[in-house]
């Protein structure tokens, strides 16, 4: 019961204006069409959004290529039985990578099971990122050190955590932004509503980033909402919002960058919907042929975000064959290294099960631990 060492500079939770409020409703609506900076062939389109610097776009390209290779490798690892399950983000590279590039290392990211690619793009060791899916432990990286919450499976629950984290950080005088990844399906959960609303009421610096990949497992978006766009939800919370072409990496980064700036500037949370597509089945265990046609998938494969950025950068003279080849080589090396390291079967100490249920095990847990220890000893000294 000591005081916290760090200086606590508390901010007054702002109060909303008096009611009835004739509000500036229309300005809170997102653009009527998803924001695009590149067309499908990679040509630059006019936009109010400033284009990120060339160096940043090259880095975006690099991480997307590595990210996709990581993703393919992970899918391959499931086939070899090295992973219990893998939810691929193939086709969503623009969102996965631009998402983490839009924030600082000191910001917090709240990923779901879908965001393994985003995790490695954030610099987390891929083996640590895959610990959950390999079945060793629920979270393989140090969330506090990486300022990255453990991947969240109970859908939409992380939105509220992000609101609380962002508020708590601001309350303590830090300018941290929280970036939450969430799927289209998860927006139907009550926790999404509560998370966005808490962030709005407390003006917490959160960016809610919806990757609308058009499916929640087998369920199409039409079963999640009757709204014109998920971004139209923002206005109901007094939250600024935007919709963006999720397969246009430049647009995603531009829109998220502005959203993060807005949030950091104290303008409250921001909601971004990216229209994209889940190219792979929900996970390797899913059979997508039951609920969608290959034609649909093919059409979206034609909207490849990597090809689009590559075409743009090449066209703009910012990427050449050598650079592309260098990135490809890096990606292969990354995958080789991952494959090699994942072939080792880690030993997980059964008695570690009792270590972190509480800060200190209860007497009851110590009893159970002793029982397990004795069993293991009887089985032949495994413990």
């Amino acid at each position, binding site marked *: 019961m000591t005081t916290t060492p760090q200086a606590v500079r508390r901010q007054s939770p702002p109060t909303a204006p008096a009611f009835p409020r004739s509000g500036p409703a229309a300005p809170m609506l997102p653009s009527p069409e998803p924001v695009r900076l590149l067309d499908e062939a990679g040509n630059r389109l006019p936009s109010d959004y400033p284009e990120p610097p060339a160096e940043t776009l090259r880095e975006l390209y690099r991480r997307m290529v590595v990210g996709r290779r990581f993703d393919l490798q992970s899918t391959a690892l499931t086939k070899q039985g090295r992973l*219990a*399950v893998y939810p691929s983000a193939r086709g969503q590279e623009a969102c996965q990578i631009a998402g983490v590039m839009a924030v600082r290392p000191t910001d917090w990211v709240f990923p779901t*099971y879908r965001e393994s690619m985003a995790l490695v793009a954030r610099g987390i060791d891929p083996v640590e990122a895959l610990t*959950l*899916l*390999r*079945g*060793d*432990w*629920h979270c393989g990286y140090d969330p506090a050190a990486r300022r990255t919450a453990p991947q969240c*499976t*109970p*859908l939409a629950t992380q939105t509220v955590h992000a609101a609380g984290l962002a508020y708590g950080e601001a309350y303590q005088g830090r300018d941290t932004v929280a970036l939450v990844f969430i799927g289209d*399906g*998860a927006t*139907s*959960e*009550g*926790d999404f509503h509560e998370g966005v609303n808490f962030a709005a009421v407390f003006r917490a610096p959160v960016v809610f980033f919806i990757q609308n990949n058009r499916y*929640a*497992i*087998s*369920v199409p978006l039409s*079963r*999640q*909402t009757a709204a014109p766009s998920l971004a139209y939800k923002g206005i109901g919370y007094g939250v600024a919002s935007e919709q963006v072409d999720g397969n246009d990496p430049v647009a995603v980064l531009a829109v998220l960058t502005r959203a993060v700036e807005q949030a950091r500037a104290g303008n409250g949370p921001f909601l971004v919907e990216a229209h994209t597509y889940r190219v792979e089945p929900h996970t390797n265990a*899913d*059979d997508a042929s*039951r*609920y969608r046609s290959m034609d649909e998938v093919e059409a979206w494969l034609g909207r490849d975000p990597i090809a689009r950025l590559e075409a743009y950068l090449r066209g703009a003279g910012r990427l050449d064959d050598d650079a592309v080849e260098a990135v490809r080589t890096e990606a292969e090396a990354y995958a080789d290294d991952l494959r090699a390291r994942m072939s080792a079967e880690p030993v*997980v100490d*059964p008695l570690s*099960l*009792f270590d972190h*249920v509480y800060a200190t095990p*209860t007497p*009851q*847990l110590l009893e*159970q631990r002793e029982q*397990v220890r004795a*069993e293991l000893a009887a089985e032949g000294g495994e413990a």
Partner: protein
Amino acid sequence: MATVTMAKALNAALRDALATDERVVVFGEDVGRLGGVFRITDGLQTEFGEQRCFDTPLAEAGIVGFAVGMAMSGLRPVVEMQFDAFAYPAFEQITSHVAKLRNRTRGGLSAPIVIRVPYAGGIGGVEHHCDSSEAYYVHTPGLKVVTPATVEDAYALLRAAIADPDPVVFLEPKKLYFASAEAALPVTAPGFGRAVVRRPGRDATLVTYGASVPVALEAAEAGRDEGWDLEVVDLRTLVPFDDETVTASVRRTGRCVVVQEASGFAGVGAEIAARVQERCFHSLHAPVLRVAGLDIPYPPPKLEHVHLPGVDRILDAVARLQWDDQPDPKWVAA
């Protein structure tokens, strides 16, 4: 007789219920085209149409609350929660409405809803996919709680649940979905509140249910080598509870071990142990022991075997039933 998996038996029960009773509707997440992540609703949408088997928005409180409203309109909703831990968002709807609707309205309204929950572990699932959540439901008056351990019971109990006038939380042991057995469906079985002796024995009674029944049977078989003749009681329905069968068995054998996969502390096994010692005190040669999951969050796949009650742990408990104290144990402080 054909060889059928529990998954297929459940599917057949839903199909037959849809065919027999127009009021039955099946909905939830991915139950339509996909046929459910475990394929329990496979083919139902094709056969009965989008109106009788459909996907909903991804929101469990919504699904259960929607079912309450549909029940008020005279329908018989059968809803699927995709996994045990994903029923928790619906907890308020289940405890404050589904369980209480009849009571609150003195029978004026009722909620004959079946909430199907694939539960428990043993399938190498990642976190939140393997909870044994039965204790939450059995402690909530107004709910019936059912869990089949055999293919035939899966069919018969699900039909009974759908026909029942009360809400039923129907817990499906995931790891038994693809276990198969000879079964001639449709089949009927004793209704709710009737346990069954799956294996007769004279020396001690293993009381269990759901996913743990096959483990207990295996332990009983293995126990034979150690010289124990173990009886196995499968509860089938946790609410209502069959005191008669359990009490009769334990009075006969004089010893009892309760086996469950859920964490032990304040689990269903605690209730069983408490009831058995209340009712069979003078027949007991040893305390009622419990073999249960550890009091920890469900572990990751690589460690679930440490958590789950297995044959050895059950036989260890049987061995602790004070066989040498027999026949006349004293009241000594231990």
